């Protein structure tokens, strides 16, 4: 694992010591090289995990997330080049260092084998994200957004710290690989209920669960593009990853405790999808669609069947790439008209046809078109929730329809129709933007050829 961590640490001296006109090129190139290294971890032995050291390990659940994280860093750097071009050099380097630091913490989080180590890094990812949102966001609401983000997550995760220390005391060690063999069933009692809640609330807030999702639209909308990308693509998946790890310790109480959260998720995904239909703010629409997709992941993780875990993993990876791509597309709009309102830049297909192709593909993957991995994820989740309870098929079906509705609404409003007369002199698409979209889309489409690698440890 050090072969990924040390190069990522070394990216920071790279930014600070490069020549001013080479900082973007250097960091993007080496970031891409690091992501190539991480792809080697996708080759997992089928019955066990790849143990790298005493502290790090990677299995079929964390390897795709690791690849997603390292793949996203060069993409974030490419997306940030335009809005940082006017800033002084030191601030550019600071921004890039924050992104690299965040990347480092995320890599270590996904490969941590001890749960307290995981917790420390889970919290550590909050600091660079907070700095990116609050320092480099664009509107005054970003201060409030940073506060909501930090405090919602911390309120959920402090009980997790206490719970982890209690489990450490109880079981003797928190090394994830070892406690899998020492698990005792957790009977139903009031103190165990609180233990379950303490363990799970941190990840529920991070996912986010429907009732606790208030931080997400604020944070996503106010963050600069790299912040939005990493928030949507990776930080939400931290919640899913954490839930999938910690539910191994919490059986069979999960069957009893899962009901309120299942109801919140099932209802919430329909609610947030419906809100998307009425949004005027493009980034807010994508943010609420993230909540809706993550509610599916929560449902899948709480059901705890093999198919649902496969669906959750696939959905996390697919949603990461799709959501990040949608934010890049929204940002390309924002950089041209400096407004997030959708109807201000309509009819872009006549002006920027290639970008319209990327919009089309992104919207199609967002609504889970076959044979993309989005569909595999959603389909597995829908089928396993049907086996859990037959009635959920109605709610899931309504959700799929509304997802399709708002994705197409977003596509049609921004691309089709007559263009608004004041956007005739926007700049044409940069090659950098087209490359960004391609780099998002290629993994998404290629993975539909071999989805086995993202289906997780149960496959």
């Amino acid at each position, binding site marked *: 694992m050090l072969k990924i961590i040390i190069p990522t640490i070394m990216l920071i001296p790279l930014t600070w010591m490069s020549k001013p006109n080479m900082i973007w090129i250097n960091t993007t190139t080496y970031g891409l090289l690091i992501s190539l290294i991480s792809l080697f971890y996708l080759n997992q032995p089928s019955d066990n995990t790849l143990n790298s050291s005493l502290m790090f390990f990677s299995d079929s659940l964390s390897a795709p997330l690791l690849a997603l994280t390292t793949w996203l860093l060069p993409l974030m750097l490419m997306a940030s080049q335009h809005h940082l071009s006017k800033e002084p050099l030191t601030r550019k380097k600071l921004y890039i260092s924050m992104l690299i630091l965040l990347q480092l913490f995320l890599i270590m989080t996904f490969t941590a084998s001890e749960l307290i180590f995981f917790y420390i*890094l889970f*919290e550590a990812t*909050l600091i660079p994200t907070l700095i990116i949102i*609050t320092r480099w966001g664009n509107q005054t609401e970003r*201060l409030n957004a940073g506060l909501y983000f*930090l405090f919602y997550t911390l309120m959920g995760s*402090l009980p997790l710290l206490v719970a982890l220390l209690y489990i450490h005391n109880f079981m003797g060690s928190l090394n994830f690989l070892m406690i899998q063999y020492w698990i005792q069933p957790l009977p139903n009692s009031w103190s165990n209920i609180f233990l379950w809640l303490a363990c799970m609330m941190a990840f529920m807030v991070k996912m986010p669960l429907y009732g606790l999702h208030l931080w997400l639209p604020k944070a996503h909308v106010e963050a600069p593009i790299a912040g939005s990308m990493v928030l949507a693509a990776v930080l939400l998946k931290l919640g899913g990853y954490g839930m999938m790890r910690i539910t191994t310790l919490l059986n069979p109480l999960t069957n009893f405790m899962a009901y309120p959260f299942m109801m919140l998720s099932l209802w919430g995904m329909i609610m947030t999808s419906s809100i998307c239909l009425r949004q005027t703010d493009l980034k807010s629409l994508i943010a609420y669609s993230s909540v809706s997709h993550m509610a599916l992941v929560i449902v899948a993780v709480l059901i705890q069947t093999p198919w649902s875990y496969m669906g959750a993993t696939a959905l996390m990876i697919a949603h990461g790439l799709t959501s990040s791509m949608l934010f890049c597309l929204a940002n390309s709009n924002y950089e041209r008209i400096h407004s997030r309102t959708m109807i201000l830049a309509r009819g872009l297909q006549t002006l920027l046809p290639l970008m319209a192709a990327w919009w089309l593909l992104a919207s199609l993957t967002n609504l889970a078109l076959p044979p993309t991995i989005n569909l595999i994820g959603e389909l597995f989740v829908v089928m396993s929730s049907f086996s859990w309870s037959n009635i959920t098929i109605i709610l899931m079906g309504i959700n799929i329809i509304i997802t399709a509705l708002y994705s197409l609404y977003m596509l049609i409003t921004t691309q089709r129709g007559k263009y608004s007369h004041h956007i005739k002199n926007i700049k044409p698409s940069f090659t950098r933007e087209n490359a960004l979209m391609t780099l998002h889309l290629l993994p998404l489409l290629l993975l539909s050829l071999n989805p086995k690698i993202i289906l997780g440890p149960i496959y």
Partner: protein
Amino acid sequence: MKPPILIIIMATIMTGTMIVMLSSHWLLIWIGFEMNMLAIIPILMKKYNPRAMEASTKYFLTQATASMLLMMGVTINLLYSGQWVISKISNPIASIMMTTALTMKLGLSPFHFWVPEVTQGITLMSGMILLTWQKIAPMSILYQISPSINTNLLMLMALTSVLVGGWGGLNQTQLRKIMAYSSIAHMGWMAAIITYNPTMMVLNLTLYILMTLSTFMLFMLNSSTTTLSLSHMWNKFPLITSMILILMLSLGGLPPLSGFIPKWMIIQELTKNNMIIIPTLMAITALLNLYFYLRLTYSTALTMFPSTNNMKMKWQFEYTKKATLLPPLIITSTMLL
């Protein structure tokens, strides 16, 4: 203040604390406390204005009362055990009295009312000495009598201190009062763990002193005592603003900075002793502390406040204030995890 006098007074302060830490005879400990208190009064009154005099008077009154209470506890212990050696206190009344006296000296709730007002009335340098060095002596005595302290009393004081420190600091804009409430809250964390594992208290004290020293030194660089004057720092010393950012997050106890170490260890010790609700409550209340630290960083590092000049960087003379030991202090206060 003339240098020879300053040296003598500083030496007396240090000698006082040393005497407290190194003696085993209760009378000598009391002497050490009195020496310390009497010598620090001129330091508190360095600026000769009514506010400083009020602050020194309040400090003197509370500390003298606390010393007298301590003496009473010592006398009762003498009555029941017949010896002056500091060791396990056999009588519960004596133990409670001593604990109350020492917590009064520290500024734990419900004896915390003097801390913000005294800290506000004095200069930044004196405030630094007050909040860091002055905590060492009472803490060392609490460490030595820790087997006999009544746990319920101290835990109650600790819990209320954390709450008071959190809520009291929310409405403040003066930096010295913010640091005073932060001191109250951190003392609460330290008091909570003394009876269970005193070593963690020493760890917390060390890290707290390091972080508070760094914070005060950064404030002194700019001679800023209000949030407003701190917010002009981006104009003069942009690097210091990043330092303040990290230091404030470390004081708030965010991983992976070193301010998280004491909180983690204390919660670990408390859960090992089957207390679950109290550490959860303390941890969540520490978020209140984090809120006002974060508000400081918002105005300082993360936004650019409108300032008096229109240039990007203020032109100024060559920088002359000495920042002794500042880099190592900052590194140790943030990177120890």
